Every structure is written in structure tokens, then in C-alpha cells.
């Protein structure tokens, strides 16, 4: 049902609630992700004024622990429904992702400690899909579309402009 405009004071909040409820869930989760990751860049820059990248990694991990407990509970709850085949390989790749991601975090933070502005470091590091796409091209032999080739070209231009 399309939202109904009303000048009545009583109906205003009801319509606002309906409009909120009609917003797709995926859009709300996506917007929340933007807020969380966008703010992460800011707080990291503030922290970089008083802590080295290694100590930050320890505190960063402390920050992730409550979520880890919640996710562990979710995994335990859904254990019965999960397939067991290929689990070892899946866990290996997930663990490697964490190690690479963690070392990447240290490098990201070091970039801020070395004087990089959050407004420049965040856009540069956000270009990481260019490496994923290049690896998919070279290692996984995936084909790239025209749009992705354009994205790759723009990524190199962006790095040049941001480093100026």
C-alpha cells in the first residue's frame, strides 16, 4: 500500500512507522554498514594520535570479542543444520582471511599513524576490490566485464589523484 499523506497530527507518526516498515531490510542493513564502517575510519584516525599500530590491534581485537561470543552462540545453535563436508578447508580459508585481514588492519592503522589523513587513507584502502578482481582474473581465470575493466582503470587514476 502506498504511503498516505495526512495533515492530521495523530496519523503522522503512524504513517512514518509504516514507511519505515516498508523499507527493505537489506537496505537498512546496508545503510547501517555504511555508518559503522564510515565511523570506523574516523575513530581509527583519532586513536592513531596516541597508540601504535600493534597496541591498536590488541584493543581492536578486544572490541570484536563481544560480537565473537554472539556469533559463536549462533554457530552452536545452527550446528545441526550445517554440512560437515569440506569444513576443514572452509575453516582454513576463514582463518587465513582473518590473518591477512588483521595484518591489513595493522598496515591501515600504520598509514594513519604515519600522517595519512582519514579522508585520504579510507578511500585508498577501499579500493581493495581491485586486487580481488585482478586475482580472480589471474588465479581463478574469471572473465571481467567492461564495467570492471573501467573500475580497474578508475582505481589506478584514484590512487594517483589521492597520493598527489
Amino acid at each position: 500500500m502506498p504511503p498516505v499523506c495526512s495533515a492530521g497530527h495523530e496519523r503522522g507518526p503512524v504513517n512514518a512507522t509504516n514507511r519505515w516498515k516498508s523499507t527493505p531490510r537489506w537496505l537498512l542493513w546496508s545503510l547501517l554498514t555504511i555508518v559503522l564502517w564510515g565511523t570506523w575510519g574516523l575513530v581509527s584516525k583519532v586513536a592513531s594520535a596516541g597508540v601504535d599500530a600493534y597496541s591498536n590491534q590488541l584493543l581492536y581485537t578486544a572490541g570484536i570479542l563481544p560480537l565473537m561470543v554472539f556469533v559463536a552462540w549462533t554457530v552452536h545453535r545452527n550446528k545441526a543444520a550445517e554440512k560437515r563436508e569440506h569444513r576443514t578447508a572452509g575453516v582454513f580459508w576463514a582463518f587465513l582471511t582473518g590473518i591477512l585481514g588483521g595484518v591489513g588492519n595493522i598496515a591501515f592503522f600504520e598509514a594513519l599513524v604515519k600522517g595519512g589523513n582519514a579522508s585520504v587513507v579510507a578511500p585508498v584502502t577501499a579500493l581493495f576490490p581491485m586486487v580481488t578482481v585482478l586475482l580472480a582474473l589471474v588465479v581463478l581465470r574469471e572473465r571481467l566485464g567492461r564495467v570492471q575493466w573501467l573500475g580497474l582503470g578508475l582505481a589506478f587514476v584514484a590512487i594517483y589523484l589521492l597520493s598527489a
Partner: protein
Amino acid sequence: MHAWLGFAILALVLWGITGVTQKLSTNRISSERSFLWFCWAMVALSGLVLLLVRPHSALGIVVVLCSVAGGALNGLGAWTSFRALESGGKASIVISLISLYPLLTVVLAVLLLHERLTWMQSAGAVTAIAAAILLSLEPNSKVEP
């Protein structure tokens, strides 16, 4: 080359590789279990850091809060991005939309930290976000209204 740029590119390369390893993981196990083992790796890496490096002992409360918040925000962001994909959002749209997050960092850094961008850097930030969106689109994917 500036030292900060070298580290930023190192982060870009490492995070780029995780795009492939994460895919190899979630092809075999659930996204929750994959995220859990991602976190265990963070714990292991922190253990290694504790063994090899003497951590900063005298830290201000604001710095500690911001560092801990950094982990919480990044972790929660990863979790909400999974929820966005699981809630029926098309991967090409969700990932492209999420790629806008540096734009918020730029706005917040300019407004709250009073950072200033040259016109070339401003153009670079916009180009980077456009590039990240284009790179996130799957080949032959069509964005439907």
C-alpha cells in the same frame, strides 16, 4: 612515495586477497562459522603481537575507547553486511551501496577532524568510490529498480 601511502597500499593488497580467501571459505562453510574463524585468527594474531612486541602501556582513555570502538565498529559492519545479503538484497546492489562507506569517513573527517583535501584529492576520493562501486558489480549484472 609517502610512507603512509605505502602502508595504505599494503592494506589494500592484503584486504584484496581476503576477497578471494573469504569466497573460498564461504563456498564451504556458513558465513557465521567463517566469521567466527576470522575472529579466532584475529585473537591468534593478537597473541603473536603480545609475544613479539611490547605494547604501549600508558594510553589515554579516549585512545583506548577509540581503538576498542574501531574493532567493534568494523566487526559489526562485517556482520550487518552479511545480514544485508541474507535479507534478500542483490549482491551487486548491496556491495555497491556499502562501497560508499569511505564517503562518510571523508565527510566526518572534514567536519569533525577539520581535515582539508586538495582539489586533486577530492577528485581522487570521488573517483575511488566510483571505482569501488564498478569493481563490485558482477560481470553482466543488471541493476533493476
